[in-house]
């Protein structure tokens, strides 16, 4: 199509980039992962609440990347990326969540899991 003669460096996705934004993305992710590492190394939480806490930290890290790295927002340049991501996120949850639920139940009903010795995993 026509209209390709404008300066490519003037494109909003080029203009979006900024040193502060990327350094903030680096620091926030490292800090959140560091916090998760400390929680993990202390080994003093119940499994359930540990998973929730670490999962929450991961969610925050992903959120900060969505905003700081990918620059997702509702501007004209980025709206379709944001919309498509929001439509896809439920599929991530459905795929992993329902699979885990399904096999958790299946393993219990077929008595594959013995709860005597090992540490827990998501399937228990």
């Amino acid at each position, binding site marked *: 199509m026509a209209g390709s003669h404008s300066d490519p460096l003037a494109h909003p996705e080029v203009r979006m980039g900024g040193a502060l934004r990327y350094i903030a993305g680096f620091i926030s992710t490292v800090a959140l992962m560091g916090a998760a590492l400390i929680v993990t190394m202390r080994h003093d939480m119940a499994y359930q609440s540990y998973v929730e806490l670490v999962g929450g930290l991961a969610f925050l890290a992903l959120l900060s990347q969505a905003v700081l790295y990918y620059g997702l927002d509702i501007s004209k340049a980025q709206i379709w990326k944001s919309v498509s991501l929001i439509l*896809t996120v439920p599929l991530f949850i459905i795929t992993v969540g329902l699979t885990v639920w399904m096999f958790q139940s299946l393993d219990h009903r*077929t008595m594959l899991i013995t709860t005597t010795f090992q540490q827990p995993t998501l399937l228990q």
Partner: protein
Amino acid sequence: MHLQFPGPWSPLLGRLTLNAIPYTNPILQGTFVGAAVIALLVVGSVLYFKKVGYFWREWLTSVDHKKIGVMYIVIGLVMLFRGFVDGLMMRTQQVMANGPHASGVLGSMHGFLPPYHFDQVYSAHGTIMILFAATPILTGFQNIVVPLQIGARDMAFPYMNALSLWLTTAGAVLVMISLFVGDFSAAGWVGLIPLTELPYSPGVGVDYWMWAIQISSIGTTLNAINMIVTIVKMRAPGMTWFRLPIFSWTTLSTNIIGLTAFPVLGVALALLGADRYLGTHFFTAGMGGNLMLYTNLFWIWGHPEVYFLILPVFGILSEVVPTFCEKPLFGYVTMVAATFAIAGVSWLVWLHHFFTMGAGPDINGFFSIATMLVGIPTGVKVFNWAFTMYRARITYTVPMMWAMFGLFLLLAGGLTGMMLAIPAVNYTVHDSVFVIAHFHCMVLLVVAAAFAGVTYWFPKLFGFKLSEAWGKVFFWLFSSGTVVVFAAMFALGFQGETRRLDWTYNTAWMPMLLVEEFGMLLYCLSLAAFAIMLVVSIRDRAKNRAGADPWGTSRTLEWLTPSPVPFYNFAMTPQVNTRDELAWRRKHGLENAKPDHYEAIHMPSNSGLPVIIGGLSAVWGFAMIWRIWWLAAISILAIIVCVIIRSFDKNEGYHLQPGEIEAMERDLATGMITSEQPDRSHNNAIHAEAH
């Protein structure tokens, strides 16, 4: 490799030996002779009429969305025929091999197919019909129609569009090669696990199945990206979301499914491939594998795939029904909402394919209810079509008849689907031919809509209509064949016939098996009618010349272009003023309005790289199947090099000048065909070859 498989392996040819060619099998001998004769006829006539250059320039290297769409549909129809022959063989085998005293011919104990051959036939039938017939045909329609409907000149990525086509073709080619070199999978189109694992399927059949699907589904994913970006970014000015024709809406939703579901299939097959090639234990019966994990991953793709097929079909029905009812579609907004509701729920139902796994009442209940929820938006759609037809002036053209038959199949398939959604019923009829009859109602709905689409859009592309009389003969034979075969199959399901039987042990099934075979006869006759329809229509094409709007009552933007559509689609980008733009223009006498001047049009150049990459992918797949490692390494490197070469290609297309457009538009108005591009559009490589 440390993996154990029987037979020799050499560094040069991998597992390939002369024994891999089944030259002793009389059925395959006949098939080979037939295929060779057809291939010689096609190649010979191309050479005789000196059309090699034409095919290369106008088709193989084309990046025109309409030609790519036509090639998709041609491949789909060829594979549909192949899949039909498989079906015919299965039906005939089951009639011949009924009861303990059934005799056998051609070395079989019963019937004419030994079990191992029969297993390959049903595996090939399913794989081909879903992935290499239905998918390319529907993708073809989307390619042809969507850019025209939204008022665009082309797809967002014309080059990638060609690449998608040739990757799909590479998969289809591998399936066809498996007929004559080696064998095909004998483990069902779903890949029954752990039967597909190396110890139980040590041959190359599963590898053919796996790599063919893997390569073609990369093409499908790329096409999904292309379609979504086209619809989001390339709508003509004024084409707001709620003016978008329903077919384009369904294309959008179906490609969202394609984009998100196919990677899961890719993972399921890649993990199986890791088991077979690298000795991992994802799905093995021992060493910590989990059989049901494969089934789970396969159906996470498999069920959305069902809606990936059915949504564009709903789109075709939504175009055909209003056209021949001379009314706007009833409930446009609810139609759009229902489309997306179906696409959304499609991700929540996959366990209903394996209720009998025994995941427990909570889980079966959840998936059962989710499955039944699909009935609500589907019901909305059926009522919308019914209300469109209510008190309408219906013209019973061939496309309309296919559409009405499609509604009948949707009802039969949908209601039996509701029965199957009840786990208690499902446990009883699981793996019986009742299930087969149910989903064949749905996939034959796809076929019905495909033929509706073929007859409906054919004049747009080729400039003449298909013969109505022979179209009706074809319709009645095909639809009555469908009813006869699958009504009998529902009954056999209730009589307890399970699926995939190479020997139908119960003599009480014989009457219904005979009825099914009679239905197959009707199908065979319909095939002849289809061939006659094509011949007669081409012979009488001068009489059936079509104008811009051959049906006279169509409503959407694609019918604003001349028939056949020139390669640049619209001489001037249209301004869209309302939903059903053409119907509105016709109502106000504006349908023949022409722009007062023309502007230069930027067109993409043809490229030979997509077809080369497609060919290399087929070579790569073949090398992987036969474990010819040097060839696999070379072909994958060649593919990467081709992609890099393309990224260095500065060829940015060419501009069609206003004078040229004006001349071509004048020719089109007088009925001359101007679908070929002017000579200078060919890139330098082709010029060099021609000189």
